[in-house]
């Protein structure tokens, strides 16, 4: 029935048998999107774009990479020097990894600010946290592959965390390593998993989008669309708005790739891995630093590991910690203050994660860690009860028209 929509006879023929064009058409034109989304709603599409860039460049890199402790570092240098445009492909892969995390962190903070995790979007949010966890695992294993000093020692530190688990910890670590230290079997399995996990991410992304399209996007006001006057079609309005975001993303990525390709990496990773020589400071990639700070804030190893994983687990249960019926921070004056405090706290944790664990940094790490958990476990549940929220507009159209008049 929908096949009549298409004028091209080939498209019509295919769509009659395999309705992919109807499906795309449905998502493009019939999928209603709130008319008031701002540029913060670009970051989901940008994350998807980053994933695609990572997979495409990664596949090409894998064609030229050798997963062996004696050859990995050299094969990466060969990519940089002898493979046609290999330096470009590798720098894009390296820097898009960082940009992927920047985009996803902004995407997450946007969700926190506008209450996008609240009913009925709990599963959408939780699938997002699953994607984030998979991304962290993938990025960690990818960083090991060039087999530089930080690759090796980062892998040693992080895999050793599992030894903190009582009774079975040591066996788990041996199982992860495939031996009794980080060595060739470790590198091989990390390469295998690093190639596998992006496709798992892509699978969860599909679920994430299915869950998103069930109720549609949240919006800056956080109230549901009441009817067609509150929504517009995805195409052309949001395709063109996403294009602006994509252009900005690509521009910033190009600046990083072509002019500061190593700014977000560590110089020690251009030194081949040497199990006999520990670097002065072992630090993970910048996007793990907040979690690294939480890990080191606790003097007990098991406690640190548990707390670090709790920092992510707390995001899973966030929809049930924040029970305020109002979604958007625009109408929650007290929540808004605490949101920015949390934002600063996370930046501070990132800074502290890059500092040596000594002196004032230890104390600050503990305070910042305490604040992180205080925010989610105490402040948010209390705000749900005690905060007086501002009156909500009657519909999305109402304030949209109001601001339109205000500007005009």
């Amino acid at each position, binding site marked *: 029935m929908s096949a009549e929509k298409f004028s091209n006879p080939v498209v019509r023929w295919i769509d009659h048998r395999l309705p992919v064009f109807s499906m795309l058409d449905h998502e493009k034109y019939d999928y209603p999107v709130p008319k008031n989304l701002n540029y913060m709603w670009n970051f989901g599409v940008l994350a998807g774009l980053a994933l695609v860039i990572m997979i495409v460049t990664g596949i090409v890199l894998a064609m030229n990479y050798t997963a062996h402790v004696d050859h990995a570092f050299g094969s990466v240098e060969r990519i940089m020097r002898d493979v046609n445009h290999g*330096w*470009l492909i590798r720098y894009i892969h390296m820097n898009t990894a960082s940009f992927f995390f920047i985009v996803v962190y902004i995407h997450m903070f946007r969700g926190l600010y506008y209450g996008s995790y609240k009913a009925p979007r709990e599963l959408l949010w939780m699938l997002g946290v699953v994607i984030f966890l998979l991304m962290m695992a993938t990025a960690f294993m990818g960083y090991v592959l060039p087999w530089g000093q930080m690759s090796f020692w980062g892998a040693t530190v992080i895999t050793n965390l599992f030894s903190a688990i009582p009774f079975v910890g040591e066996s788990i670590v041996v199982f992860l390593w495939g031996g009794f230290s980080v060595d060739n079997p470790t590198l091989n399995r990390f390469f295998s998993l690093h190639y596998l996990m992006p496709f798992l991410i892509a699978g969860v992304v599909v679920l994430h989008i299915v869950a998103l399209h069930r109720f549609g996007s949240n919006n800056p006001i956080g109230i549901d669309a009441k009817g067609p006057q509150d929504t517009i079609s995805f195409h052309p309005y949001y395709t063109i708005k996403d294009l602006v975001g994509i252009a900005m993303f690509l521009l910033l990525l190009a600046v990083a790739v072509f002019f500061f390709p190593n700014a977000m990496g560590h110089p020690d990773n251009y030194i081949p891995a040497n199990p006999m020589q520990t670097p002065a400071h072992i630090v993970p990639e910048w996007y793990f630093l907040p979690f690294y700070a939480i890990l080191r804030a606790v003097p007990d190893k098991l406690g640190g590991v548990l707390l670090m994983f709790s920092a992510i687990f707390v995001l899973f249960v966030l929809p049930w910690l924040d029970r305020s019926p109002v979604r958007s921070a625009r109408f929650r004056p007290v929540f808004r203050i605490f949101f920015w405090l949390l934002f600063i706290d996370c930046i501070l944790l990132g800074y502290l994660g890059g500092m040596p664990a000594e002196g004032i940094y230890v104390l600050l790490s503990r305070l910042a860690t305490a604040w992180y958990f205080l925010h989610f476990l105490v402040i948010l549940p209390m705000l749900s009860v005690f905060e007086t929220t501002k009156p909500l507009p009657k519909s999305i159209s109402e304030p949209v028209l109001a601001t339109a008049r205000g500007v005009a």
Partner: protein
Amino acid sequence: MRKFLIASAAAIAAMIGLASPAMAAGGGDVKLQTGEWSFTGPFGYFDKAALQRGFQVYREVCAGCHGLDYIAFRNLADLGYNEAEIKAIAAEYEVMDGPDDEGEMFMRPARPADIIPNPYRNNNEARASNNGAMPPDLSLIAKARANGPDYLYSLLLGYVDAPADKDVPDGMHYNNAYSGNLIAMPQPIYGDDVEYADGAPTTPEGLSADVTNFLMWAAEPKLEVRKRIGVAAVFFLSIFLVMSYFAKRRVWADLH
């Protein structure tokens, strides 16, 4: 939420800015001198004459102890040498090849495709010849140290008299650019260590700057093409951004 976007961008910039020196923290009271490099900035390029002089410094000074394991003679074309010159340079070296039809390894003159031979057969020999210290390979040294070029330049010029209260053990040397100030490498450059054909100054500063240029090229040989493509890419994407922004305004105009 424009405020949010700006705050996020500022926060990310601040975080990267704060984290980079933190990551680079080598420790100690190290102060780097900044050289003037042609390869910095968006239009950066390599000064070929300086690269050739730097290669000469490498050959006559550094190569006694340090290898260049990722550089082949053919790569020297980047320095402005032609094929015949590269063949001639390579032929000055002997490399091991084989096994031949009798199963024997043999020495032959190097060819452009060969890696520049390392002064030592293996790391153990390198250590044994240097008091137990391992002279690092120099192929990537300019990227493997924070602020690589300035660091190398400062290190080469950093051999000064140790302060009276600083104990310098036998076989170690005082250097004000090296983390911890005690370095196993003896002072390599004193000035006039090599004779330049082009008459460029052979002061310690001149020699150190030249070899730093050469080592930056060795670490990042694709720097020039990278920046050239980068300028074009940024130019193109800027126009793309402006055009997509106005296209968006045009499309959205019919909503109001």
